[in-house]
């Protein structure tokens, strides 16, 4: 390499990736050890979800698709906890199920975290909430659940026949669902197609931020009533229900990590632009 190729502008474009990775990791560690506690503005998408949950009446059936995986647990779990807390406060009955293969294990982890407020609200498994487990088939399974839940579920996750479960004796298909939400990193559109488009069931989605661009047009048209935008949305929901938790801590991470990525973007381009000007 000649001295012409080794200017500061070249160095700016060739920072070793190990340095970048370490900076990313450090940018996450600092805010988690020393939270900033900054205010979180509430987006209209989260507000519509919260307002919709506010319309739940005691005895309404709120269906929750626990479709997230370990990879997105960091924001889906806090969102699930906040929303379930709100639904329980409104006295809604909870029917939980999964169309994603890691869903059952995610449920087993999160149930321990929501059990305290389920118990203090007097919720009993089988009467007020139930978990049906996983069903294969993706959108085919969703269509089957919408038309007849017993065509894909004969027992709950623990082997109890549906007809022996008090709550499920009055839940057969979409007509019995007051509203539903899917916590997914997969295909949120399939839920909207099978439940809202065909039967008009109020549908909410909690997806990762990277899915939000493709889902926003459906929220704008009203096909999706409430939309939680990944970790940011989960933090907003935690604030709205008055239970700041892990998602609020995540927003502090965004403060640092997003700026690090922004810095990478700018530094790389400064080097590129100045190198180009030098050649001129």
């Amino acid at each position, binding site marked *: 390499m000649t001295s012409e190729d080794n200017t500061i502008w070249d160095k700016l474009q060739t920072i070793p990736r190990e340095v970048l990775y370490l900076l990313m990791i450090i940018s996450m560690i600092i805010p988690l050890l020393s939270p900033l506690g900054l205010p979180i503005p509430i987006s209209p998408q989260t507000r519509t979800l919260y307002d919709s949950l506010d319309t739940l009446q005691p005895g309404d059936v709120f269906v929750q698709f626990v479709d997230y995986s370990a990879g997105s647990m960091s924001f889906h779990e806090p969102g699930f906890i906040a929303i379930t807390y709100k639904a329980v406060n409104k006295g809604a009955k909870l029917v939980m199920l999964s169309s994603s293969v890691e869903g059952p294990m995610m449920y087993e982890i999160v149930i321990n975290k929501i059990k305290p407020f389920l118990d203090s609200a007097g919720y009993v498994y089988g009467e007020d909430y139930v978990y049906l487990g996983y069903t294969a088939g993706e959108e085919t399974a969703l269509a*089957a659940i919408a038309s007849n839940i017993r065509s894909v579920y004969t027992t709950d996750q623990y082997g109890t026949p549906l007809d022996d479960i008090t709550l499920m004796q009055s839940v057969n298909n979409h007509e019995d669902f007051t509203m539903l939400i899917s916590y997914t990193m997969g295909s949120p559109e399939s839920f909207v197609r099978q439940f809202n488009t065909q039967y008009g069931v109020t549908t909410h989605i909690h997806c990762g931020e990277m899915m939000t661009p493709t889902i926003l047009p459906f929220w704008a048209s009203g096909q999706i009533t409430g939309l939680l935008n990944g970790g940011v949305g989960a933090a907003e929901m935690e604030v709205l229900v008055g239970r700041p938790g892990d998602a609020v801590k995540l927003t502090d991470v965004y403060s640092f990590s997003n700026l690090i990525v922004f810095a990478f973007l700018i530094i*790389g381009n400064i080097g590129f632009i100045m190198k180009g000007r030098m050649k001129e």
Partner: protein
Amino acid sequence: MSTKIVRRTIPLIITFIVGMLMIGEWFFNVASIDQVAESVRQWGVLVSAFAMGLGSVNIVIRNLRRIEKREGTDWLYAIWLLIVFFGFVGIGVGMGSASSQYQYIYNTILQPLSGTMYPATLFFLCSAIYRTFRIRSYQALLFVATGAVILVANAPVVAATFPLLVATKAWIMDVELTAAYRAILIGIGLGTIMLGFRVIFGLEQTHLGREEGD
């Protein structure tokens, strides 16, 4: 019966019949169609469950071959892979997926692995952003500038200091991005419907595999 009819035509007819049944159920409110469609959907769910095992069988076959070849240290990893695989299957099927034993191995082994594997792509993403997102044109400038605004506006420490950035981000997401993606979705929708009907009417046969098998 001709080989081609049994091996190709009848599967295409099956695709057509069940596809049209699903579409007919949507548009016609006839109890008998609904009943048949419900049963067929149940079959679809059951067959999908069988399909989930296909990848696993593939993994077992490939790793048995690696053990057979004994190249370098590869075969040792293959042995470990098969031990873990059959361990999970044995405990999960034998004791049930709701058992505390299965939950323990899931939480200890699969959950941290699954929870790190996809998020770790963050590092590759950051490296790609740093090395390849160069402003070589006005389009690239728009791309980088919009991305930068969204990144920075999602940092609460900046959002609290520059509320104008938050408003800009909201405008970009709620107006510009929604409109552009709506157009993209309409375009994708056209393509999906065309492809869907081509599959149902047998004009698209890629799902049946190569013709040499006939």
